[in-house]
């Protein structure tokens, strides 16, 4: 069996092997790793996961009485008579998981918003970045839901704990998707946090029969965690799991993903024209101003780079028009010392694109003709 240290060294070796690779797959793996690294460094979120979930579930289990309440289960198509405090821990766990994951995704997307824009403008694939965020969301949801599920089993014994954990995972996906969208469209962190908290509170409270005894109204079906709550309650108190109700969360995730992709595309859109402009060197006339000085000499002033002035009469035997002096090529990058030594010489070469032949006649009319011919 591979030891933990060996696994870590293998992971490190794999990461190192990715370092200089820039394929789409390598970029995706790097982005996933960086996304998860960011979340792992969100200490407030980690503290909430570790401490808030057990405290919250403990409070709910301890404070709410164990009187039986009726829960309208769509999974069993009937009414489940269950202890109020145990049902409340399911609501509480969904509430905690959705808040934390929604907050983590919102914070990460919000804080890296400008950075992501810069990455995309620099050439990073949008699909790569968005896929990485989605993968990070799944990883976080698995971790947080698993932890919350384990903590819940400390307070009571759900009939199907794995299904209960799965319902928490799906609720996390829903609010994670919501966090991504809010991170892209809202301008302040306070606004995002407020929206997530309010939606989660309303969502969970309306479905809880302890607070809302008539929680079987049709409107409840349209709440984001309806499927997760139905699956969780059925898993807690019956032997029925329901993939169909749990999958409602995926519909919400797809909806948020569509909005998120559109918002991300708009936010990171590159408005510059990157299409290469046709090379016009050698075929574009230069713009020159020709003036006669008081001493009779001719002054040729270029408005777009230096020109070659030929004193021969046409036809020019030296053929100085062709080829035109080439634009200064991009010199290869050199080390610091070498570049410094070369710089004075290289700076004297100035690019041009057209050779202009003119006569050195003192006549202004001749000069103007020459300028016109050029």
């Amino acid at each position, binding site marked *: 069996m591979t030891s933990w240290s060996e696994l870590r060294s293998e992971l490190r070796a794999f990461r190192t092997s990715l370092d200089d690779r820039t394929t789409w797959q390598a970029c995706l793996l790097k982005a996933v790793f960086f996304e998860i690294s960011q979340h792992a460094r969100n200490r407030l979120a980690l503290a909430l996961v570790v401490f808030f979930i057990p405290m919250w579930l403990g409070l709910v289990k301890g404070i709410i009485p164990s009187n039986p309440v009726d829960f309208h289960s769509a999974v069993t198509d009937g009414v489940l008579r269950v202890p109020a405090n145990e049902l409340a821990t399911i609501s509480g766990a969904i509430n905690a998981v959705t808040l934390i994951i929604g907050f983590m995704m919102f914070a990460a997307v919000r804080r890296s918003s*400008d950075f992501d824009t810069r990455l995309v*403008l620099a050439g990073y694939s949008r699909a790569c970045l968005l896929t990485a965020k989605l993968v990070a969301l799944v990883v976080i949801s698995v971790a947080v839901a698993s932890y919350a599920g384990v903590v819940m089993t400390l307070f009571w014994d759900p009939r199907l704990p794995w299904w209960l954990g799965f319902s928490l995972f799906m609720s996390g996906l829903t609010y994670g998707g919501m966090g991504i969208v809010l991170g892209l469209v809202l301008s302040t962190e306070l606004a995002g946090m407020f929206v997530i908290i309010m939606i989660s509170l309303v969502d969970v409270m309306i479905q809880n029969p302890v607070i809302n005894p008539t929680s079987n109204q049709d409107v409840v079906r349209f709440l984001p965690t309806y499927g997760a709550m139905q699956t969780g309650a059925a898993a807690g108190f019956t032997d029925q799991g329901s993939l169909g109700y749990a999958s409602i969360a995926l519909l919400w995730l797809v909806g948020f993903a569509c909005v998120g992709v559109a918002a991300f595309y708009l936010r990171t859109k590159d408005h510059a024209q*990157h299409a290469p402009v046709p090379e016009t060197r050698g075929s574009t006339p230069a713009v020159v101003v020709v003036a006669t000085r008081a001493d009779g000499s001719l002054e040729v002033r270029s408005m777009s780079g230096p020109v070659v002035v030929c004193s021969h009469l046409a036809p020019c035997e030296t053929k100085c028009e062709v080829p035109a002096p080439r*634009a200064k*090529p991009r010199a290869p990058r050199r080390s610091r010392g070498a570049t410094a030594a070369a710089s004075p010489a290289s700076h004297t070469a100035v690019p041009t694109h057209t050779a202009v032949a003119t006569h050195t006649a003192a006549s202004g009319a001749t000069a103007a003709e020459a300028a016109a011919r050029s």
Partner: protein
Amino acid sequence: MTGDFSLRAVNIHKSYGTRPVLRGVDFTLRPGEIMGVIGENGAGKTTLLRVLAGELKADRGEVLQRDRLGYCPQRIVVNDELTVEQHLRYFQCAYQLDDLGRAYELLERLDLAKYRNRKAGVLSGGTRQKLNLTIALMHDPGVVLMDEPYQGFDWENYLNFWAITNELRDRGQSVLVISHIAHDVERFDRIHRLRAGRVVDEDAPERITT
């Protein structure tokens, strides 16, 4: 108006609501020159650079570029949760670079190498700005747009910055620097002043070298 250029702005207009900021900006950035754009606070310098970099959409006009762009925004755009090394790896993918040789050279020259494994969020303002600048230059772009790129630099790093910029120019790359009024004007080959939403030529300064 044709000719040799690395980047050209043609009749750029940009308004925020009913307030026009750019009202027909025209200029050409030539290969192998350092051009400065100066202007008073609120003149629209940063807006102009964001339009040139493709970050903002102009209401009218177009920006043409012939080479890869390097963009150093005024506001430091880094990810506080990532290390300096991770930033370089991220942008290596974005720029499709075979290696990080140029990036590491810049880190050395800007005295940033010792922070390679530090998170950007714990770095000082000047050090974060060095990272901001390194990201803009690490792919050796043909056209570099920089908005107040030396803010927070100490004198030595300020000189390092100009040495790097001069080397870019000397190798035929084009550099456009947004700067405050009367700030470093003598270091530019050409200067444009942004006034009333348009750019106008300033007198050519006497160059100084570092």
